[in-house]
């Protein structure tokens, strides 16, 4: 038994400071993304979430130039972009996708410029990897409170708005008749999404941030027909993928070195890679289980 545990948890896993921070921050962010992601998937805003992730890369890259933590850059640009998306008008699907696509393209262009300056004009040569693909093991523990604040805000918004948001997602007309301000609810939900995207960008990177928001919720959709349990499953799957990802990334340091590693010595694999792959595996498992039960097929959520 002890041998198996030692094989799973390589030496020092439980005593490593960066691992503690990674488990704590990664866990909190995973749960928040699972909760917010449920409505992202339900409201068909996956592409908007993707756009916000890309745009947040611009802020993250810019924050290196300003010498502040990338979390402020991620959150700042993502919230502002969410506001712009709402102003442009997201009533029609085509208009919404075009607006997202155009803003996102411009944002990525700026991100490319900022990242170029980051690497050439500042000493932070690791900036592109940190911004685009995350930095869960190198999160400064002084940021924990900021991340906690953003997490409480995002998850709190969704929890408070749960029922009006659910009814608005089913039908705007039905929600209005029940006395709900559909517009206000929609804007606040988009703000929660923007915050969750910036948190996800901190842990698994701006480019991959949507994976944590969309993947677990899409998987949960195949496990239950009820909104409450869907939210719980989504948070749980997201948490499992993140924690297992942290463990595998830590263990990978002890795995046999790849031929390309010889010059550099031992190198671990990036945690974002494991998280994203685990999310995909969970999704495929849920899909297979559903097909097996013959409960009818569902089109893949967009």
């Amino acid at each position, binding site marked *: 038994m002890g041998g198996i545990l030692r094989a799973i948890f390589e030496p020092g896993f439980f005593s490593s400071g960066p691992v503690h921070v990674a488990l704590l921050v990664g866990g909190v962010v995973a749960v928040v993304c699972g909760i917010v992601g449920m409505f992202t998937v339900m409201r068909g805003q996956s592409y908007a979430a993707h756009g916000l992730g890309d745009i947040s890369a611009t802020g993250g890259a810019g924050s290196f130039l300003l010498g502040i933590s990338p979390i402020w850059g991620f959150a700042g640009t993502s919230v502002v972009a969410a506001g712009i998306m709402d102003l442009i008008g997201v009533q029609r699907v085509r208009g919404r996708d075009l607006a997202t696509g155009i803003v996102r393209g411009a944002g990525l262009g700026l991100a490319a410029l900022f990242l170029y300056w980051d690497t050439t004009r500042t000493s932070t040569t690791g900036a592109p990897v940190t911004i685009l693909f995350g930095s869960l093991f190198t999160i400064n523990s002084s940021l924990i409170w900021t991340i906690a604040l953003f997490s409480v805000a995002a998850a709190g918004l969704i929890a408070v708005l749960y029922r009006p948001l659910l*009814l608005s997602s089913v*039908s705007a*007309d039905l929600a209005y*008749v*029940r*006395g*709900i301000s559909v517009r206000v609810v929609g804007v606040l939900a988009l703000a929660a999404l923007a915050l969750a995207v910036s948190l996800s960008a901190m842990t698994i990177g701006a480019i991959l941030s949507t994976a944590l928001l969309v993947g677990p919720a899409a998987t949960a959709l195949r496990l239950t*027909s009820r909104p*409450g349990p869907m939210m719980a499953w989504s948070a749980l799957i997201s948490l499992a993928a993140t924690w297992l990802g942290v463990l595998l990334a830590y263990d990978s340091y002890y795995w046999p070195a790849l031929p390309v590693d010889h010059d550099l010595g031992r190198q671990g694999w990036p945690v974002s890679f494991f998280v994203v792959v685990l999310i995909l595996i969970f999704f495929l498992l849920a899909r297979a289980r559903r097909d097996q039960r013959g409960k009818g097929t569902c089109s893949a959520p967009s």
Partner: protein
Amino acid sequence: MNGLSVRLGGREVLHDVSFTLRRGEFVGLIGANGAGKTTLMRVILGLLQPAAGEILIGGRPRGRRAGAVGYVPQKIQLDPDMPLRARDLVGLGLDGNRLGFPLPSRSRRALVDEMLRAVNAEHIAQARVGNLSGGEQQRILIAHALISRPALLLLDEPLANLDIASEQEVVALLARIAREQQIAVLISAHEMNPLLPVMDRIVYMAKGRAASGPTDDVVRDDVLSELYGSHVDVIRLHGRILVVAGRGDGLDILADDGHGHDADPAATVGTVRTGTG
């Protein structure tokens, strides 16, 4: 309050429309496409503001007070992927406007069950709403609208896209609900035939104006002619009522079966059958 009056006067789409609905009454809002039925419903719901006139519910002006008016929209796009069971949607009719999560409670569950029973939908309570048929979704939406105990229930073209059997089932269901729950049911349709057996009164709309009263008092040559602003004949023929425009030769009687027949609403203002319920 027993009395429930609705009065409003708009300028263009609706011109000086007035009528009163009482609890327990089943009222048909009849008119061709474009007559202003949906506009009227949206005004009653508060989705549109009337240019003039007022709407009184239970003797008071309608506010944003949730629950006074129940509404079943004409069609609603429900994604089959939407993780929402029929009973969840009914529950949202009760407290969907409240903040936070719904707390499980015995009385809430009992009330949802009661509403599902009232619309004969107990057997589909656990199914995803997106996977239900059009008629089943409609019954769930009726339960969703009823659960807040509204004084007035509005249904926008609930018989569109239903086959004859479901049509009669929905009409009988709504008539029973109006009687049992003592609420006013206002149902819009471009075809009054299926409603005739149960309709207490009719609100007949044409060109943004309305005439209301018992069916036999409204569906008459003189009343409808005045409403349309040109001569109209109401012909009762072999148990069917034909409402036709024009005088003398070349009388163009549209005698189809009613479904989707508004090719020329100016010439033919409606086809009505009686006694086929």
